[in-house]
């Protein structure tokens, strides 16, 4: 990019900032860095601008690079971090107008970062980039001192459980002593209620209850954790008996990165949809104002089409997300919501419904502020929207003769599609697993429990994960779950797997 281009890009960026403000998007100062494609590919693969070395990042880098170099697709165009001062990358080799598109898109993201309750949560970890950068050198030093393979093993192990966290992303679980204090007080209060004349009448406990409460109180004195905890890495950092200081450090870094990124998992459709929705508007303005030339329009249209292309086998958030905001805006502008509209069964009346209430913009901003993807699917993926988007469920069937996998449409019913999409986003791919006992059998074994919700765990993955946890806990690890409608406990004792 030459000086002229740089100057022009800078002027356009200033204009985009103003347009964003006119649209009442929240903005802040954003750092745009112009980098070579290679650097962008790394940034996409390493989660943060600079991060520690690990083969998982290398694997993704290799994949992204291959796509970029050999297929000409997947031109890296967008990477933005939700930092205190948001940071985004622009690729030197990209066409000028694609970099403008990226800037417009990033302004959409930044509004989302600042306006969404969930992404604000991610911003609470604003020093995460610095921590990632610093870990690079430190982890390398650990490698030189304790062996690179050993460091890799600990990173592998931490990564295998890094997304395990309480279902509520806003919750930071209390540590043992805090929880113990709270629980003991609660039981004491209840016991005193039971024995006092003036106690809370709702809590009248029987003699038997009182005995069990007293027993519980006794156990609470030494029990770890006092109450099941879901933040596995946090528990291991605090309680794994044989971890070295450097190993705890690695666990801490890996955990913090997951904590900072996990809100993103909950708002993929909305976040990308929002940024795409706004980049389309901002770009339109830039062309109208003559800041971009008609000949650049063609290039823009190509890239915009590429980004928002519908996929046969996955849900393209850029496409479906931006269509959703368009749909919501239209519906709320025309009053297609509320009990009267919902009660109307006449398809023609529904199709022509327009109360000119003009609440579209207000609605999309409120969705941006407080919805997760799951809430949006439940609330806003109407039958009409699902039809209009031509969504379907597909299945894979293996042809025994040709050994080919045949992908076919299984379902087109909006209700079923909605419920499948919703199910996928109840847990966001994280199985709820809690530490129940950190001193199982009084021998310091680790006992975990899976909150079974109808789908059993994949056995191979489960065993592999238990091996990784063993690497950190260094004593036998138990996991209780259900399989084939029976309670089952997986055990790994460092040498072999058993099921009880």
């Amino acid at each position, binding site marked *: 990019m030459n000086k002229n281009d740089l100057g022009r890009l800078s002027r356009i960026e200033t204009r985009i900032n103003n347009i964003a403000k006119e649209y009442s998007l929240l903005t802040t100062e954003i750092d745009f860095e112009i980098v070579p494609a290679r*650097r962008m590919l790394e940034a996409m693969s390493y989660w943060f601008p600079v991060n520690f070395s690990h*083969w998982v990042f290398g694997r993704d880098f290799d994949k992204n690079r291959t796509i970029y170099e050999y297929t000409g697709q997947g031109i890296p165009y967008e990477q933005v971090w939700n930092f205190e001062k948001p940071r985004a990358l622009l690729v030197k080799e990209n066409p000028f107008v694609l970099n403008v598109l990226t800037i417009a898109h990033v302004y959409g993201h930044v509004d989302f970062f600042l306006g969404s309750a969930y992404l604000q949560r991610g911003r609470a970890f604003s020093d995460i980039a610095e921590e990632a950068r610093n870990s690079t050198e430190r982890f390398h030093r650990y490698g030189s001192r304790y062996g690179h393979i050993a460091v890799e093993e600990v990173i592998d192990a931490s990564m295998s459980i890094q997304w395990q966290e309480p279902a509520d992303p806003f919750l930071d679980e209390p540590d043992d002593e805090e929880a113990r204090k709270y629980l003991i007080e609660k039981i004491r209060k209840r016991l005193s209620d039971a024995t006092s004349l003036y106690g809370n009448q709702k809590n009248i406990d029987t003699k038997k209850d009182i005995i069990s409460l007293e027993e519980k109180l006794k156990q609470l004195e030494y029990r770890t954790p006092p109450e099941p905890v879901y933040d596995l890495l946090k528990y291991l950092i605090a309680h794994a008996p044989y971890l070295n200081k450097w190993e705890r450090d690695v666990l801490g870094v890996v955990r913090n990165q997951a904590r900072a990124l996990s809100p993103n998992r909950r708002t993929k459709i909305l976040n990308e949809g929002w940024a795409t929705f706004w980049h389309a508007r901002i770009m339109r303005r830039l062309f109208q104002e003559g800041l971009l030339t008609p000949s650049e329009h063609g290039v823009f249209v190509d890239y915009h089409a590429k980004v928002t292309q519908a996929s046969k086998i996955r849900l393209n958030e850029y496409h479906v997300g931006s269509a959703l905001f368009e749909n919501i805006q239209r519906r709320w502008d025309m009053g297609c919501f509320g009990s009267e509209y919902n009660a109307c069964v006449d398809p023609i009346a529904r199709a022509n419904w327009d109360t000119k209430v003009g609440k579209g913009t207000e609605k999309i901003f409120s969705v941006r502020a407080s919805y997760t993807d799951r809430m949006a699917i439940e609330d806003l993926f109407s039958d009409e929207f699902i039809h209009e988007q031509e*969504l379907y469920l597909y299945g894979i069937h293996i042809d025994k003769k040709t050994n080919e996998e045949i992908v076919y449409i299984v379902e087109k019913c909006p209700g079923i*599609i909605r419920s499948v999409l919703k199910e996928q986003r109840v847990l966001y791919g994280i199985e709820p697993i809690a530490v129940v006992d950190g001193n199982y059998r009084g021998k310091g074994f680790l006992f975990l429990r899976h909150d079974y919700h109808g789908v059993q765990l994949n056995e191979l993955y489960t065993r592999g994960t238990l091996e990784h946890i063993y690497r950190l806990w260094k004593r036998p690890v138990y996991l209780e779950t259900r399989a084939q409608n029976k309670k089952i406990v997986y055990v790994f004792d460092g040498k072999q797997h058993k099921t009880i």
Partner: protein
Amino acid sequence: MPIIIPEHIKERGKNDARRHREKQKEIIKEQLPGIIAEESIITGKPGKIIKVPIKSLEIPYFKSGKPSPSVGVGQGGGNKGDIIGKRKGFEKEKGHKRAGNEPGVDYIETEIEIEELIEMAMEDLGLPRLEEKTVKKLIIELGYKIHGISRSGPPSLLHRGKTVKEGIRRFWAFLNALRQKSGSSEFLCYRSLKQANGNINEAIRLLKDNAVDISDVDEKIEPFPILHPEDLRYRKIQESRSYRSQAVVFAMMDVSYSMDMEKKYFARSMFWWLVTFLRNIYQEVQVRFIAHDTTAWLVNEEEFFHTGEMGGTYCASAYELVKNLIETEYPVSVYNVYAWHFSDGDDFNAEAAAKSIQKLLDMGINMIGYGEIHSDKYTGQEFSDLLKTYINKFNLPVKKEDNFLVWGRDELSFMAVVLCHKSDLWPAIKAFLRKDR
């Protein structure tokens, strides 16, 4: 200005990607027994890229189990039941349970060059070591060749360049010595050395006597060689010879036994790998195919793998044919001889077979292997009279290698194995080629 060109950040993607590929290779190595038996390999040409299904490298995590029949959400036109796409699936070998024991993950297809695979297999075999001890080499005299430099020799081989270089070195050494001894300027020392024609004692005298002529010359030092006898350099001649190593593989198969396609494929794959490995060790490898029932005859490769059922069985007939071939065409003094025999173990005269093998061993054959092919259901308990005879006759202890039974003794160039599954091929090849035997 919010748009900036940042400082250079150290590249790390490539290194980490390399580590990932290393790990992938480790996995390929672990799965060698399965991969080596892939049929696509032996039909491959050099440089061919084969696809091997290996596990994608993923860190295991707590993952929910079986997906329901519907596996995902997609977008586009079409009705219930419409096919929206096809892709190649992965063959899962029956009875091949190994893969299932590792924590990990779906199969992905990775590409690997056949050469790379062979190299990995060779590494796993520890094959390069074979060369030092066991390979017989043929010496071919090629006359003489000039190679290297020596300090003496006939005048005709004088190496002028090297000799002059030595002389110039002596010139500089003398010049330095003169300067130190006399304390005169470099140029004066040079003139005196020149005037004394390189004689250092004369030069010292000239300097002492102040008799150096420095008139009419530029102040320039032009080094010239000063040659003493020890400065002369000569070209060296050596006898020239080259080494050639050659091997022959005798592939024997009992055609009386009705082998189904899969079993025939065992044989094919085994010979392919044997020859491939031997080609990496020897410059020239020949293969002779011998089919036998009660008599043995030489066939070509095509016939070898396609000959149908015949009558009874005398393994000895095949071994005797090998013996004749060694005596007439492939003397063990110049050939490294390998023989492999596939059979189902039925033999009318096991004693004679054992005797014939003894004869081959006495001749100094590198290695002879016996592979008994059984059905999949073979339990490892019962084996044929032929194998029993071999075990008794040669006093072969059984060894378990990678869960695979091998009968053989380290000092004996004979071994026997039983093959039931595709995955037995690799341990069998390994046992056969293992050099320590």
